[in-house]
């Protein structure tokens, strides 16, 4: 049987879909990725974490393929690219701090840093101070170039290993600049839903097309949006792969 492997940020992890919990087993089993897997008759892993960066997505995909994937099994990768203004840092092994998540195959020493990370959720004072430098760390061009390179690399890794996949944006669109434009031209549009259109990203599709106007203070959609989006996504994947 095929296993759907979902990789992405909080939207892919289903954060807050139950209104109460940021991350929970219930949320992961009822988010659009879980529902899509169920509709397609696939088993399911969810590697997504809240605050995940595109670096995280690329890293976890390589790690899954080389470490966890079984040669005799079939996998389908659902990749939800996130805002480019994010990165990951890591507490060293001797640090007392960690970042817990319900994600499969999670290394809790990695900490996802975003431009909007609220200081009060960061336990470590040093990490908190690092957020003062988001303008230094998250230059738009630097991060948009990185995102384009990571997408292209991911696409080729999946193709080389003959894995089926589908990509979406979860909360924004891929941004072009003079350096990454030719890379973006090489994104295979058959397997990536409108990468340059913000309204085609999961969050805005639910908001503007599916009319789910209520969402949490951290900009997460609730369960009804996940249910409807999974129908849309399942339909897309069925059409692309004639399933």
């Amino acid at each position, binding site marked *: 049987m095929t296993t759907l492997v979902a990789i992405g940020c909080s939207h892919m992890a289903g954060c807050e879909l139950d209104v109460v919990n940021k991350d929970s087993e219930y949320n992961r089993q009822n988010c659009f990725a879980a529902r899509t897997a169920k509709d397609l008759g696939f088993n399911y892993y969810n590697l997504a974490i809240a605050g995940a960066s595109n*670096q995280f997505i*690329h*890293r976890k995909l*390589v*790690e899954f393929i*080389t*470490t966890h994937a079984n040669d005799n099994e079939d996998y389908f990768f659902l990749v939800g690219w996130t805002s480019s203004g994010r990165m*990951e*840092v*890591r*507490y*060293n*092994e001797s640090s007392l701090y960690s970042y817990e998540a319900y994600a499969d195959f999670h*290394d809790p*020493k*990695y900490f996802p840093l975003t431009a909007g990370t609220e200081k009060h959720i960061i336990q470590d004072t*040093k*990490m908190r*101070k*690092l957020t003062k*430098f988001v*303008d*230094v*760390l998250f*230059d*738009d*061009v*630097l991060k948009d*170039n*990185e995102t384009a*390179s*990571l997408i*292209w*690399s*991911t696409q*080729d*890794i999946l*193709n*080389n*290993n003959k894995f089926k996949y589908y990509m979406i944006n979860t909360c924004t669109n891929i941004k072009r600049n003079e*350096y*990454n434009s*030719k*890379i973006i*031209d*090489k994104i295979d549009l058959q397997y990536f839903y409108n990468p340059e259109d913000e309204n085609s990203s999961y969050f805005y599709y639910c908001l503007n097309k599916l009319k789910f106007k209520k969402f949490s203070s951290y900009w997460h959609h609730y369960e009804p949006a996940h249910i409807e989006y999974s129908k849309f996504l399942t339909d897309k994947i069925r059409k692309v792969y004639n399933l």
Partner: protein
Amino acid sequence: MKTLVANGCSHTSGSELYEGLGECLENRNLSYAKKVADNLGYDYVNIAINGGSNDYIFRSTIEFINNNLKNIQDYVFLIGWTSSLRIELRYSNRNIHLFNRNSNIDFYDKKYIPITPNTSISLFEDKRFGKMIQKNKDLIIEDTFCSDKFANYAFGLQSIFEAYNIKYFMFNTIHGQQKTGNNKATIKNLSKNPKYYKPLDHDDTFFFYCKDVLGYTDLTSYWHHKQDAHNAWSEILYERSKEWLK
């Protein structure tokens, strides 16, 4: 005629070979990479930069491939991975500063800042960048994180080369890949590929092979090998890579 594209850090750019200058076109033409290209009978482009990180090597190789995709079969790639403990940042377009030591590469974006754990604050035109690095080195240049990223970049770039049927050869210039709990299977995979020369082996990197095996111990103050070491390494590298680059 085919063109060899060399990418890497200061070792591949031939830093200090010509009259001790850190960066100049002459250095690139004296580097081991040029001699490998000559031995193969190929033209030569060198996009390595001083302080170049593996972030840079991954990103700029992808940019180069995409800028030349129409005739990409005319190019072969020689990748000299560098220390994993380096990153790159960038002055924003609103920021007036440049980090412009790399004027010999025509497509290079001079806003990028190559950063190593020892980059002196005096090199940053905008001191906030230097301050941020100095204060947060242990968080943003953490060992496991950097080692995981290094393995992923090598795996990612290999996948791109293979997907486009591009000839390539990889080696390490100064540090071997480091196994972690996260990347050990990726590194095992890299080690099986004969187009990446001994990814784990510290002693087979350009710097340490020349110093400890070949005995070239007369280094510059910035720990660069001199011309004799480059000449010797070019012969070794040619022998190791010719099967994959011809």
